[in-house]
């Protein structure tokens, strides 16, 4: 628990101390705006766009423009956001036990439901290192949006603590609707990652955890349960 001992920038202190009510409303609006962009992409454009998925990039781009501009306007540094290496080991240490527990649970659930673990199931055409590297990149993007934006804006509303962890996890799970197993996994994962981020903000550690845990879940749980990690309208495809 070295939050107090770590150097904190202005942006970090704003997120946890004197916040005017208007800032809370603005932070809530930012979260809603990001979530709406993701849902528009997942549910409306993925359905209406036909074979071309390029149109989904429009709300996603708008969402990332919002994230970047908001972070600049709020004076958040890369260090504030968690793009740093000094606390990587500490974040990994916090992540190790939950990752191990979830991995064992996933293996147990998979075995009990009759699924045989298969380490190459995620993308059989790619080597595991390639899968994990791609998973790391994708995980970094997701964790960047989820933690350095949603989690931090939630902290402006409610400060650090259980409520912001639950809100971040809930939003992460909501974005994986209607895939029930994935929603459960993302709620648990989202809560763990949000908890760790509030104590040791390091997006690289979270992205590594995200990649490894996705690989573990895909390798252990039945394929039918995860439905190829499909979410939104594509879940029914």
């Amino acid at each position, binding site marked *: 628990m070295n939050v107090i001992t770590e150097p904190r920038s202005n942006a970090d202190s704003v997120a946890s101390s004197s916040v005017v009510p208007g800032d809370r409303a*603005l932070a809530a609006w*930012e979260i809603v705006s990001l979530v709406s962009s993701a849902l528009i992409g997942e549910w409306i454009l993925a359905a209406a766009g036909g074979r071309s998925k390029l149109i989904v990039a429009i709300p996603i781009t708008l969402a990332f423009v919002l994230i970047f*501009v908001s972070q600049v306007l709020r*004076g958040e540094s890369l260090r504030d956001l968690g793009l740093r290496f000094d606390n990587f080991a500490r974040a990994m240490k916090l992540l190790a036990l939950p990752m191990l527990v979830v991995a064992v649970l996933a293996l147990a659930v998979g075995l009990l439901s009759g699924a045989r673990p298969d380490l190459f199931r995620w993308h059989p055409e790619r080597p595991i290192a390639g899968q994990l590297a791609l998973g790391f990149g994708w995980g970094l993007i997701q964790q960047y949006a989820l933690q350095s934006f949603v989690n931090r804006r939630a902290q402006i509303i409610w400060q650090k603590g259980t409520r912001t962890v639950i809100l971040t996890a809930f939003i992460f799970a909501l974005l994986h609707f209607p895939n029930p197993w994935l929603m459960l996994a993302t709620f648990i994962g989202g809560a763990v990652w949000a908890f760790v981020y509030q104590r040791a903000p390091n997006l690289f550690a979270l992205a590594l955890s995200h990649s490894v845990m996705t690989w573990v879940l895909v390798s252990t749980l039945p394929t039918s349960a995860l439905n190829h990690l499909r979410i939104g309208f594509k879940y029914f495809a």
Partner: protein
Amino acid sequence: MDNKSRGRLVHLLISKSMAEALLIAAVSVGFYFATTNPNLHGVLDNADQSWVTGWAVDEANPSARVEVQLFVDDAFAGHMMANQFRPDVHDQKRADDNWHGFAFRTPELSPGEHQVRVYAVHSNGAGTRRTLQLIGKPYKFIIQ
């Protein structure tokens, strides 16, 4: 966060919402025209234990034949091209020629009330979507 930055952020949020609203509106209109042909018209004239008859025309392309599908009690029962002799359609200037009728032979049905629907098949330009548009109104009839 100073007032100027707050104002900029509010402007960005409003602009983003407007851009997304316009995008959804544009996609909705595009989706409507990709899945619907407002020029498809027709009538389901009659249905009994022997035949289901009517006509269908694409008024944007009145010389073309329209594919139609028959559903009896919400179950698919057959398809055909609406290319049978119907001079009355031509007489009413709904088509360029006399060949826009359809006549399905009614499948064997149990005694009682049944409902038939005939749909025109609409395919988008790329052929990636095929949708059904109801022709006329559903028709109920009784088999003794």
